[in-house]
């Protein structure tokens, strides 16, 4: 387990978690690495939590990451980022969209959607990379680009050339959305997060 790079991608059914983990895995394979990824399909596509484990190394055995050893946690929905926080290792990086998806179960009053999930994350992880990817996506004209924007952010931290990512994106997304996805990837890759003030 020691040498693998572990990436956990979380979100809600329909947000493109699976496509993002496909692109990431294929990029890593193209880069000459061994890779395994795992997720559960089925009932989860009906509005449930979707999570995908991706592990990259010279040789990977387990397709599942061990709790507490995630290097990069990528959340397409902010409270799902909060929920999965305990998977992150010390020094691990969290990349999350501000996106909120409030499930019907909270409307009938049994449960509450947290008021400020981003604030809660920052309390324990001041350096969390949280961005308004919905806004960037809608500026680009398609709200469904959030996953590619976040992949762009992730790519900046990973040791794989940009061209490899772009090649795989071109191959994996539907033809008419290629340009929009390449643009979204760049926006994520070039996004500058405000530095965290020391002592805060």
């Amino acid at each position, binding site marked *: 387990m020691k040498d693998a790079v572990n990436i956990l991608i979380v979100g*809600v059914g329909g947000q493109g978690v699976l496509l993002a983990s496909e692109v990431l895995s294929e990029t890593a394979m193209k880069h000459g690495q061994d890779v395994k990824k795992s997720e559960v399909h089925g009932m989860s596509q009906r509005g449930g939590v979707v999570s995908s484990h991706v592990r990259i190394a010279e040789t990977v055995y*387990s*397709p599942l990451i061990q*709790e507490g050893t995630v290097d990069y946690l990528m959340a397409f929905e902010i409270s799902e980022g909060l929920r999965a926080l305990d998977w992150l290792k010390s020094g691990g990086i969290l990349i999350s969209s501000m996106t909120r998806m409030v499930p019907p179960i909270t409307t009938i009053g049994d449960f509450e959607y947290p008021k400020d999930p981003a604030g809660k994350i920052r309390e324990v992880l001041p350096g969390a990379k949280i961005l308004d990817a919905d806004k960037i996506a809608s500026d680009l004209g398609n709200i469904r680009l959030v996953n590619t924007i976040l992949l762009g952010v992730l790519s900046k931290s990973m040791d794989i050339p940009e061209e490899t990512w772009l090649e795989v994106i071109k191959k994996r997304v539907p033809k008419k959305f290629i340009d929009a996805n390449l643009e979204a990837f760049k926006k994520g890759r070039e996004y500058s997060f405000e530095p965290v003030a020391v002592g805060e």
Partner: protein
Amino acid sequence: MKMLLSGNEAVARGAWEAGVEIATAYPGTPSTEILETIAMLVKEDIYAEWSPNEKVAFEVAIGGSMAGARSLVCMKHVGLNVAADPFMTYAYTGVKGGFVVVSADDPSMHSSQNEQDNRFYAKFAIIPMVEPSDSQETKDMLIQAYEISEKFDTPVLYRLVTRISHSKGVVNMGDREEHTPEGFERDIPKYVMVPGHARLRRKVVLDRLEKLKEFAEETPLNRWEKGSKEIGIITSGISYVYAKEVMPDASYLKLGFSYPLPEKKIREFAESVDRLFIIEELEPFLEEQIKAMGIQCEGKEHFTNYGELSPGEVMNGFVHAGILSEGVEKTYQTEKLFPRPPVLCPGCPHRGIFSALKKMKVPVTGDIGCYTLAALKPMEVMDSCICMGASIGNAVGMAKAGTEKKGVVAAIGDSTFLHSGITGVLDAVYNKANVVVLILDNRITAMTGGQHHPGTGVTLMGEETFQVDFVELCKTLGVKDIHTVDAYDLDASKKVLKSALEYDGPSVVITSRPCALMPNKIKETAYTVLLDECNGCKLCFRIGCPAIYASEEKTEKGHNKAIIDPETCTGCTICAQVCPKDCIVRVDSPAVEGART
């Protein structure tokens, strides 16, 4: 060539490389994508079909094998219960063309009603079992499974689990090796299982077991990996990769051929290590057999039989055994958040009919499909779910108990009805049961991702075919009181259900709206809430539509008003029909102009 393949895709590729000619299945998570992949990529080389259920799928594949074609049948673990009848006896007759049955088990019940460990089926039927550990092995070992099947004249159980089926890994591809079928040859004592012949075959099965035991000792599918002398691990399937992550330096006996066991090899391995651990998901299948050999080993006292294993679970097991000092450590903690249970999609036709059904206040025996979600909050209008087709028999029994004076409704989907509901209706008619069978006909097998069935008019190969007419079918079965209704029309649905419940004898109610997602995504003009008129009564929340949210805005009494997401709303109108203030309207209606929404 290298590709990233899921375990299911690897089965499809392996089948193609092995020269398989016939592949059959009924959809079931986590096995569904095997046949979908075959039909999508290699239908020129392999005949693939969705059968009405697993039993028929199994029997079709047997026919293929009898004609000499290498044949594949795939199902989820509980599917093998449905196919158990041909399975148990085909183990006697043996094969002509190689025959592999894929059982994809679902530890942790991600998408299943139970967690049964189908490895016992290999021992039960006395046939060999092969268990791969990742996608590469899944492809390669399937080809070997066909060789074993033909060499030993036996079906082979190929056992996967969700984490094999739905994990992807890098796979090196091979080429197809054609196995042209020789055709059927009459062999009555082999294939006609009357008692006199079956007694002879039973002997053949027992002799075959001894030969398979010898094979288990030699096959490279069972691999001894020399490591430390202190710790030896016997394991198979997905458990092997978790163990390798946690204990990379231990000695391993990895059983790719996991029934029958290589007793000599296991004994030799056990003697070569100080402590012997058996790591396996679910039941102590290996452990009990190894203990029965008189070999001392440790297993389930450390490693859970509840749910799937993981690197963390294996690590904690070794902490419990005193081998490791530290288990899983977490840097960050998370508080408990709201759950996100699966819900019926916006525009789902089940929402309408179940809203109407709720008003009937009668027991609803349920079945397997998306509509099982109606048992959950906020609808809570389904009272049982046992197995495919169970709803109708359950309703008949409940009606015969004589306690439910207002009637009993059995709710079953179209694909499930064709799978094993027809005989239930036959029972209700034959035995004059006063039940209402509600067929939720959304014209697709929805829960597993949208597969065709005999009611859709299209085959897995994409050919147009005869489309079963549910009304005519039920008439032929002898049902006199048959209704069809638009599931989006609440008043009509209530009226029809009421009439069917009042009818003395079996009734059938068939809904007519297609699934909102498949094969075509339905998107009509969205609806919106006139905020000034909303009184926060929450009735629209109670239909459990994910497009309806609580607004931040509250009424004078402090109740949240409702808002509707125009992106996800499909315009099904159910919420507008339940709104007592009539303040849910189409976004393009005149009432919206100037009003706040």
